[in-house]
């Protein structure tokens, strides 16, 4: 149900858009897209890019997971924590991550059946999480809650696992129902999971804890009902989210300065006035990708050809057209035409091109 609360410092930007702060996955996606001022501003204003796309730009956006995937994920989590010892406990123990104390925060602070009181419940879950972590000794916190702050904007995240070892250092973990397929495991899915962990890690560091930049991933073991546990370094993701934490407030401020007073993100003029940075990742991470791609095509942005090709071309290279290509590009095109026997244009021969009749 859309929450039209005026929460957060970005309320003035939302207009009619619902208050939809990013979770860990959304925050990490924003960190990966930190070159895009529009995406950063949407994140800091705590609106969903999908809502901006559909409301301000009239884009048709289909979001969300398949109910089958959701159901499978929920069933997997339930299986993990059922029984004594639980499958989760056994799997963590096999990897040297088991602890005697296991705290299920959702049982300590159940979520109310309706949306009403949800925010209070989350706040209490966060307090419960921090209380467990403040006590000494090894412990595992299941589905706790934390707050991560970017500038003055607070986001609540709910890591599946926080594991404190005997030395008091913390690791964040995520449970995913996709299979541990070794090298064939989707790099995209893995990246997102590691990113979620990095966001939780940042929240813990902001709360003054010492963390280990490693993700504990609990995955499905193929052809088995057991869990597979992998511990994976998160150097890359930590660096990205730390960069984002440093840069986002300034990027958002700079973007705001471009907007006339009273602008809100539910207006198409506002969104069109914002700088964007279309790239390969956008289609995987942002609901505005189609709209941005169209815009990039109109602007002759070489990014439409892909990041690798764009790296070889000057900005705006595609705008010049076949008759005014930059010299280096023209040389490469000439070489291509020479070898393939094509003409410079579908209907006319290239000047001096001896290969075309």
């Amino acid at each position: 149900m859309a929450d039209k609360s005026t929460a957060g410092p970005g309320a003035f930007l939302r207009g009619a858009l619902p208050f939809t702060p990013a979770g860990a996955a959304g925050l990490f996606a924003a960190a990966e897209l930190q070159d895009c001022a529009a995406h950063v501003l949407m994140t800091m204003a705590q609106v969903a890019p999908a809502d901006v796309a559909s409301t301000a730009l009239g884009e048709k956006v289909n979001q969300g997971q398949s109910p089958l995937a959701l159901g499978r994920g929920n069933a997997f989590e339930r299986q993990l924590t059922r029984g004594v010892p639980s499958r989760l406990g056994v799997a963590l123990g096999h990897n040297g991550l088991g602890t005697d104390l296991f705290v299920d925060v959702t049982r300590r602070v159940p979520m109310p059946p309706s949306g009403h009181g949800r925010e209070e419940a989350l706040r209490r879950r966060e307090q419960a999480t921090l209380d467990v972590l403040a006590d000494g000794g090894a412990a595992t916190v299941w589905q706790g809650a934390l707050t991560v702050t970017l500038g003055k904007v607070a986001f609540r995240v709910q890591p599946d696992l926080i594991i404190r070892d005997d030395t008091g250092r913390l690791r964040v973990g995520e449970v995913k129902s996709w299979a541990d397929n070794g090298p064939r495991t989707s790099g995209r899915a893995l990246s997102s999971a590691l990113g979620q962990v990095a966001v939780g890690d940042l929240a813990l560091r902001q709360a003054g804890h010492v963390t280990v930049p490693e993700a504990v991933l609990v995955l499905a073991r193929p052809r088995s009902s057991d869990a597979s546990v992998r511990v994976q370094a998160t150097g890359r993701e930590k660096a990205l989210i730390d960069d984002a934490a440093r840069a986002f407030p300034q990027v958002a401020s700079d973007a705001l300065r471009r907007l006339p007073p009273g602008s809100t993100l539910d207006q198409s003029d506002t969104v069109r006035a914002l700088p964007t940075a279309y790239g390969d990742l956008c289609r995987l991470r942002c609901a505005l990708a189609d709209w941005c791609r169209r815009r990039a095509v109109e602007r002759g942005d070489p990014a439409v050809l892909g990041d690798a090709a764009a790296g070889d071309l000057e900005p705006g290279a595609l705008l010049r057209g076949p008759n005014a290509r930059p010299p280096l590009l023209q040389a490469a095109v000439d070489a291509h035409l020479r070898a393939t026997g094509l003409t410079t244009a579908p209907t006319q021969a290239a000047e001096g091109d001896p290969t075309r009749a």
Partner: protein
Amino acid sequence: MSTSLDPERERPPQAGPNRAAADRLRLLLARGTTPVLVRSPPGAGKTGLVAEAAAGSASAGERVCAVTATNNQAGELATRTAGTDPDVQVVLLLGHTAPIPDTAAAAVADGLVMVTRTISHVPPGPVVVASSSAKWMCHPRTDQPPYDLQILEEAYMQPWHATFPLANLARRHLAVGDPGQTAPFAATGQRRWRGQPLSPLTPAAEALERLHPHAPVILLDTSLRLPADTCDVLQPLYPDLPFRGLAQTGQRVLISARRPGPAGSRFLALISGRSIARLDLPGSGGPLDPDLCRYAGRLATELTDAGLTAVDTGTAGPPRPATIAVVCARTRQVAAVRSAVTGRAASAVVVDTANRLQGLEYDVVLAVDPLAGHNRLGPFVLEAGRLSVMLSRHHNACGLLTRPEVALALARHVPTSDRVLGHDPDAEHQGRAAHAAVRGLLHP
């Protein structure tokens, strides 16, 4: 044109840095310990150490096979071994059509190194045989290992799959390498083995350490080639190998016989009192930055025309005409540099890619920033090993020629290469961190 310096310079001194490591190595080999690993920073006299070990083993009556990545390296090792102990029989084993490498030409001509192209022609008895791993792979099966000691050179460059099949050529094994060099690479997709800590492309030294965690590892901690400030700059590329330079900062200087042109003057002023610096050129260069490359060529020409002499004020060694090299990441950049190297410099200055200059050394090296001319950075461009090679070829002076936009591109870079479940060195992220760390220590 190979301008490898006089090998006499690089022979580890009888007393001094790395001597303790050399002694420990000799002791371990004498005891028959196997395997033994030696981890070395650039310019620490690794090849000299290996030559000493090989010659020592052969003079004690053993048969030694040295496995290198290339024929050039085999030639260098053969030459150095023959120079260490002229009484030891040294053989260079080459493929049937392979030319005699430059690194061994003189030694072969002088009769110090014997060349054979047929394994069965290797003489019996104590001998040191140096050859590439590809040639060793042609060795026929024998009931017993035909050699007593196998020395695996450049053990971080050579991949596991090309080296473990050679292990049964000898009873004992010594692996030596520089962990900062470029990692092994295969042209075909490596997806199948991603995530495995031991894959066919794991560097041989890493694989050995994994399989033999209790094997003695000898760390060389002093670079004879690189002065102290260069070692400090490169240290982030060697997190597990603290090392220092034998020469103090400012100890090695360049003296010009004539006043160089403006670029040369600027460079000499920049490098005064230190051995490594960053040379920022304003503006933006476009794809692969040909203008930056041409600047490097002009600079090399001016330095050559200025008649530089390399002097080490800390030793009694005589001054000598400075050798100059320009190193780039890409072949196309090499061509752009060469187009701007004129006059006497055209034959005097070496211009080549980092890959081809691995193992070689010069008094002055001008490095065209491997990140220059790329709007978007990626795993290949960010490879830390290439940067390490480029900034570790010099004795006296190294300038990294770059643009301000490079630092911006690095700061803004978001890695996009796939993450891998399991063992994931995350080369793109590590490369980015390495580049940022090194640049943070490199001052204009």
